[in-house]
């Protein structure tokens, strides 16, 4: 048999249309709320309307409501209820106050679950909530981060005697010396305070959980990013044996970090199904989602930067106060620390000091939201670089060039100890400047300024990098994360040569099915259409570390490539046996084994697949299967980077700001599907722009979330954002077999400072050197008028 068709060699790197789409565009979906099971009941939760109070709960009246099967509060479960888990011990002395799925005696944030009703229908469950009696004995809300640190502040958790979870201080001598040098040599020291407002992750699908019990097994259908982690946690927390607990993440409608937790409703869902012996489903409303899904960002950043008169960085000092909210979720405490190594970004400097205080408040707990620590760090340093340029009268790109790691200096160990494997900041910046029309827009800006136009332009720069591809296990262990960083893949080969990929990395919109098919098609030379993905189900893929931190391709994809290598090794032995050749003399390309240097006999992969399973004639002692698995644990994180340029147009009479042009060039290493990569960038850009311009979770003094619905929380619509100019450079990672660097969070990390830098650039003639996010028309207008921001704490930056 002669096989000459090489069309599938090119699957890798092509913008192939997604396999996922057919069922999504026709409504043939399997969201958790679409699923039902015979005898299924519905759960609804009573949530605290108060931020902080002692509670006494009486559920009796609710039990006689129509259709109600059961009503429970914390006391009905006792200690068996278990606790809300955390998984990141950042510091050995950190405080870990205990919280329970249903509040025990005290509520600590508005929205905290107090009781659950289980009824025959959705509406009946909700109706009965009104009959639950709760006496609230109010306690003081703790909303202001800085006040919460004070000795006289009311406590969120009286049991720990403080609102500080941990305080970490790094040695300050080197920075003090750098600062002294800057001051002595006529250099500059710039200080700013930036506020990272609270954000709501807002995946379009709210969370939902359906727990189906059988005799001694449980199946949990959850809208989650972490089916494997969730199975482990639910087993540990509820005592249900892990091997008899199956977690399925069917179609999952977005996550953005918001679905990496194990929350009250999942733990209680297991209890309910086991107690009642019937399937129980809970689906949250958007208003519940805003109160109960963890929030993101929420930091105060005091930044000080010392540089020479020529614009060379000498040192950087970061004092962070991070708002943890009411308690610890899985990665709450680690988010600010994940950013700790990223403030120095792509720049060379001699001194870096990082101090961090994390604080409990009576607000919804915070945790990872798209970027998790790195957007905050990137914002701070990229804002500071533009401030440095302005202070010195330099071009913001020029000041970056003076300080960034040059492409010939990789691998490079940064001042914070990270090892960047590869990058080319020069190439990405050069291309971005061209794509953006930097000089042309500078000229237009100048002309408008000279004419005194009402509509003014501002140009902002962001040359970001980030650390992602979450792994390696050893590093995660050193950082105190209670999880490994590997990923697992299994390649199953059927007799007819079709491939099932079992991936521990579970998708929720990223396009795994398509990209994984491209990887396998490229490696094994099988048609793209012949590859199927099995993911998001612990029954078919029992091992996995799931999806977050832009890790799927970098870690999970690498596991697939390595598993394919094992398949090829096995196949080669069978092919050699059949072709009566030495395995070392065989070559494998485009799905065909040939003997090196010989035009003679060949054997196609599909023939080997059949031979392996028939096992009529395979080498002695060989197992009759090509199936192979690999668990990949990389040696390093990955470091995508890019240059983002934003031009805003501001109506100086109203403060209304729109994006006039946005161009970015991202380097995410080797690309498997450029269409998917570009889509990830687009979505990230808008989430980052949304932080800059639109979104903020606002609490009042009593601790009520006053942006508690999509009416008040301004998620951008299509009319609020522009189309984008995007391009890529490709500098492969040297730390994984694909060369990929991760793309899921890049756009969101890079765009926020580009937008705010552009706004500040437009307003510099008015004496403005900062505008607090989100830069609403009112805040921009007030900045133009020379007014202070609403909080009074950061209107024009610390240097004013």
């Amino acid at each position: 048999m002669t096989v000459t068709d090489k069309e599938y060699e090119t699957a890798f790197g092509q913008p192939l249309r997604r396999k996922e789409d057919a069922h999504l565009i026709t409504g043939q979906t399997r969201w958790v709320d679409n699923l039902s099971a015979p005898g299924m009941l519905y759960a609804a939760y009573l949530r605290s309307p108060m931020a902080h109070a002692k509670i006494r709960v009486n559920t009796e009246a609710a039990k006689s409501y129509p259709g109600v099967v059961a009503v429970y509060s914390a006391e009905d479960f006792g200690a068996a209820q278990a606790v809300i888990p955390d998984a990141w011990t950042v510091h050995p002395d950190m405080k870990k106050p205990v919280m329970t799925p249903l509040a025990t005696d005290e509520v600590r944030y508005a929205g905290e679950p107090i009781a659950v009703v289980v009824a025959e229908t959705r509406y009946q469950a909700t109706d009965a909530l009104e009959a639950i009696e709760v006496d609230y004995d109010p306690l003081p809300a703790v909303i202001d981060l800085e006040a919460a640190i004070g000795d006289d502040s009311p406590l969120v958790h009286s049991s720990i005697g403080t609102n500080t979870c941990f305080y970490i201080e790094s040695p300050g001598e080197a920075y003090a010396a750098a600062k002294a040098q800057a001051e002595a040599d006529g250099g500059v020291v710039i200080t700013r305070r930036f506020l990272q407002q609270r954000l709501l992750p807002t995946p379009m699908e709210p969370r939902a959980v359906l727990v189906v019990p059988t005799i001694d097994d449980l199946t949990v259908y959850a809208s989650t990013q972490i089916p494997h982690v969730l199975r482990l946690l639910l087993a540990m927390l509820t005592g249900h044996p892990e091997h008899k607990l199956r977690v399925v993440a069917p179609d999952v409608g977005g996550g953005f970090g918001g679905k990496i937790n194990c929350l009250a409703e999942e733990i209680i869902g297991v209890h309910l199904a086991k107690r009642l012996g019937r399937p129980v489903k809970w689906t949250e409303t958007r208003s519940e989602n805003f109160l109960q899904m963890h929030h993101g960002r929420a930091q105060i950043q005091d930044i000080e930067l010392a540089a020479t008169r020529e614009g060379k960085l000498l040192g950087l000092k970061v004092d962070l106060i991070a708002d943890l909210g009411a308690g610890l979720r899985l990665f709450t405490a680690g988010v600010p620390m994940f950013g700790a190594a990223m403030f120095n970004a792509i720049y060379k400097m001699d001194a870096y000091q990082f101090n961090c205080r994390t604080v409990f408040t009576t607000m919804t707990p915070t945790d990872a939201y798209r970027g998790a620590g790195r957007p905050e760090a990137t914002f701070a340093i990229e804002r500071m670089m533009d401030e440095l340029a302005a202070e010195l009268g330099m071009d913001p790109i020029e000041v970056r060039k003076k300080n960034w790691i040059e492409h010939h200096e990789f691998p490079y160990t940064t001042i914070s100890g990270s090892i960047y494997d590869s990058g080319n900041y020069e190439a990405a910046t050069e291309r971005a400047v061209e794509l953006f029309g930097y000089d042309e827009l500078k000229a237009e800006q100048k002309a408008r300024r000279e004419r005194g136009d009402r509509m003014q332009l501002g140009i902002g720069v962001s040359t970001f990098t980030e650390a992602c591809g979450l792994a390696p296990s050893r590093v995660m262990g050193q950082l105190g994360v209670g999880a490994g960083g590997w990923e697992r893949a299994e390649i199953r080969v059927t007799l007819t040569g079709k491939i099932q990929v079992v991936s521990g990395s579970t998708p929720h919109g990223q396009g795994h099915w398509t990209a994984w098919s491209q990887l396998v098609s490229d490696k094994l030379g099988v048609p793209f259409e012949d590859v199927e993905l099995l993911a998001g189900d612990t029954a078919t893929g029992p091992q996995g570390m799931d999806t977050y931190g832009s890790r799927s391709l970098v870690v999970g994809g690498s596991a697939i490539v390595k598993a394919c290598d094992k398949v090829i090794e096995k196949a080669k032995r069978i092919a050699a046996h059949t072709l009566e050749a030495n395995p070392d003399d065989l070559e494998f390309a485009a799905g065909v084994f040939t003997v090196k240097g010989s035009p003679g006999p060949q054997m196609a992969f599909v023939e080997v697949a059949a031979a392996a399973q028939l096992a009529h004639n395979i080498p002695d002692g060989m197992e009759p299967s090509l199936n192979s698995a690999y668990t990949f644990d990389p040696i390093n994180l990955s470091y995508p980077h890019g240059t983002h340029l934003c031009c805003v147009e501001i109506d100086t009479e109203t403060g209304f700001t729109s994006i006039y042009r946005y161009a970015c060039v991202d380097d995410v290493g080797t690309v498997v599907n450029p269409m998917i990569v570009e889509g990830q960038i687009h979505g990230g850009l808008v989430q980052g722009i949304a932080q800059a311009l639109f979104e903020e979770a606002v609490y009042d003094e009593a601790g009520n979330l006053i942006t508690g619905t999509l009416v008040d929380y301004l998620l951008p619509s299509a009319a609020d954002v522009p189309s984008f100019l995007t391009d890529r450079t490709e500098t492969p990672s040297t730390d994984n077999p694909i060369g990929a660097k991760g793309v899921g969070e890049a756009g969101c990390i890079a765009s926020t400072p580009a937008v705010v830098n552009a706004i500040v650039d437009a307003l510099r003639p008015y004496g403005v050197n900062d505008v607090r996010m989100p830069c609403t028309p009112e805040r921009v207008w007030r900045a133009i008028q020379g007014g202070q921001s609403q909080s009074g704490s950061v209107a024009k930056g610390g240097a004013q």
Partner: protein
Amino acid sequence: MVSINVTVDGRSESHDVEPRLLLVHYLRDVVGKVGTPIGCDTSNCGACTVSFNGQSIKSCSMLAVQADGGDVLTIEGLAGTVETDLHPMQEAFRECHGLQCGYCTPGMIMAACDLLKENPNPSEAEIREGIEGNLCRCTGYHNIVRAVQTAAASMSGTGVSS
């Protein structure tokens, strides 16, 4: 309970429903048309958009009893039963990568079809304004806009109507 008769995706449905039942809950929980999802509780997100008597509506902002005697078209009725029968708007969303997680997609497609019915050749700005009642958190809208443009071109070229 109130008796209602509604045509859903071409099939006649008769049910006794509570007067307070939302149309979207009727479609999902009673008729079984779970292809139309729910993304919010304030009629902001548009995920539940369906066509009612030929006009796009948010099915969370209407009661099932108000739909009595009416004709509802959901995403599940937009295409034929095989992939080759996709509506040009569905095809354009796939071709232009106008979806990622896909949760907003049914509503987005239904709203975009309605937009093109009113304005078969919209500008980019008109598309953006036209779908601003439908929120997407994944795509940044860039490729959704391209998809609507592509569908508009394809539908005006072939004479296919929504």
